[in-house]
């Protein structure tokens, strides 16, 4: 019995390790590929002299692709979308957690339902509209459209954080002579700070990773890394080391954030399932 149990446990660990090889090997392989010198890309596989040339080319704009600029663009539009979503999303989340009012559930569902709309349905009209309004290929245009990704996420997750706070805390503050505004800013908001931090980073990652919006609504000025990384695949001669380096550089911010706040991210991602 115990021998059999130990054997099964050992088999389970092996199965788990196999899955994680599948999950992590592509990332490791990109690191290897990005460090290969251009003349060894097609010859040997695991023995080569590592070089940072690939990164130097990608970050030095030398293939005519301004990758650093795309990186900065991604930062600006992702942070912009998150900040704007927080400013309008936090009051909405608070209101829907504290008051049961007419149509509240419908309003909230409408917000969430945008997650399920095919992006191209709104992008094509926006493409036409942006051309007319001069928002095409601008930060403002990108930030506005990235709300579709960040706002529902922030409202839905923050709503459960606010719902977890007992209303008595704010009521006590009101009795102490705080105004309702002060009660929100000085009592409720500080208590959900960890939640705000986690959901902001999650929303940032989703905005950063978006591809369809920048693909169609930007061309050069406001283009982001997800579209930029793809341009290294083009051209007549495939430059695998450059593509790998660009792909890796573009995943550094989300991966770093994910590792730092791993615990909260899992909470955010699994919120819908555990709380229903």
């Amino acid at each position, binding site marked *: 019995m115990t021998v059999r149990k130990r054997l099964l*446990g050992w088999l*389970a660990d092996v*199965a*788990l390790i196999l*899955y994680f090889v599948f*999950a*992590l090997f*592509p*990332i490791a392989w*990109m690191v290897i590929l990005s460090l290969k010198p251009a003349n060894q890309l097609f010859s040997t596989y695991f023995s080569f002299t590592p070089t940072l040339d690939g990164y130097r080319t990608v970050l030095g704009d030398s293939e005519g692709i301004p990758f650093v600029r795309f990186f900065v663009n991604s930062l600006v539009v992702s942070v912009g979308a998150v900040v704007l979503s927080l*400013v*309008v*999303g936090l*009051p*909405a989340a*608070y*209101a*829907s957690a504290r*008051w049961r*009012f007419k149509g*509240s559930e419908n*309003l909230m569902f409408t917000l969430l*339902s*945008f997650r*399920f709309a*095919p*992006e*191209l*349905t*709104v992008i*094509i*009209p926006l493409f036409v509209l942006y051309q007319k309004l001069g928002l095409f290929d601008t930060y403002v245009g990108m930030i*506005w459209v990235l*709300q*579709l990704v960040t*706002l529902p996420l922030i*409202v839905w997750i923050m709503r459960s954080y606010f719902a977890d706070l007992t209303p008595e805390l704010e009521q006590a503050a*009101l009795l102490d002579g705080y105004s309702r505004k002060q009660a929100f800013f000085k009592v409720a908001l500080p208590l959900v700070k960890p939640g705000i931090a986690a959901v902001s980073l999650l929303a940032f*990652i989703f905005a950063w*990773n978006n*591809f*369809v919006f920048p693909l*169609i609504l930007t061309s050069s000025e406001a283009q982001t890394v997800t579209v930029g990384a*793809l341009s290294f*695949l083009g051209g007549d001669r495939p430059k*695998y080391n450059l*593509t790998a380096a660009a*792909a890796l550089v*573009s995943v550094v911010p*989300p*991966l770093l954030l*994910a590792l730092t706040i*791993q615990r909260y*991210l899992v909470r955010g*991602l*699994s919120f*819908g*399932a*555990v709380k*229903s």
Partner: protein
Amino acid sequence: MGWRLTLRPYVLIVPALLLTCGILYPFGLGLYYTLFDFSASKPQPDMVRFENYETVFTQDAFWNSAWVTVLYAVGAAAVETVLGVAVALLLHRSSIVGRVLEKILILPLMIAPVIAAIIWKLMLQPSVGVVNHLLKPFGLGGVQWTDTPAGALLSSIAVDVWVYTPFVAILALAGLRSLPTSPFEAAAVDGAGWWYTFRRLTLPMLWPYVLVAVIFRFMDSLKVFDIIYALTEGGPGDSTVVLQIRAYLEAIRFQRYSFGISYTIVLWAVVYLAAMVLVRHLGTIQRKAAEAK
């Protein structure tokens, strides 16, 4: 007490709604466009009413795309569910190996799907890719992964599985950790085997949690775009032209704007119907699970 001011919640929600309307407006505009024959070659469009939709439904290209989309969504969601639940069960055993690996489970999920597709595209190159290199000892050195119709579909599903299996695993793991322990203890006392416990206890109690993940994955896969765009661009031929790719080709590449939007409206309607059916099913299952507890 004191929470009676009914106007306040509306005031607090208005900014979020206004921003949302900023998106609803183009959606309505898009719907309106589909009633015209608006395209690059016809900037002054005529009202054609439902002609665009008639064309969509009578085209073989649409039915091919619909079929490919369903194959992709069902395939990806099914593999992710089975694999994700398996990974969650293995992690739930909480061996030392499991505890270490659990911390990095989330990593593929944090990589943009389009970047994941780029990574896999490099790995799947027939002659110089690492996958075929590793398969060589097994006599499979020259598989044309993304250059054959079946291979291209399977490869894109594989990328989806690589990115999103952790999502299902995380939800399933959260579900497993919130299950009551007493039924399992009782089963252990009765000497129930692993398979019996899994089939009679774990799975029925876990299913409501997993179903949320399945619904999210199925709906997201129905509107897949980035993975296919980067990996195959719909090819070879039109073997991986899912509906959003078709809409992109029509509207952006061939600049038949209203016709392209009609495709996305049809897809939107399908996703909504699927959502309604699945969410209702979810409600029933959750109620049953709550009663069983």
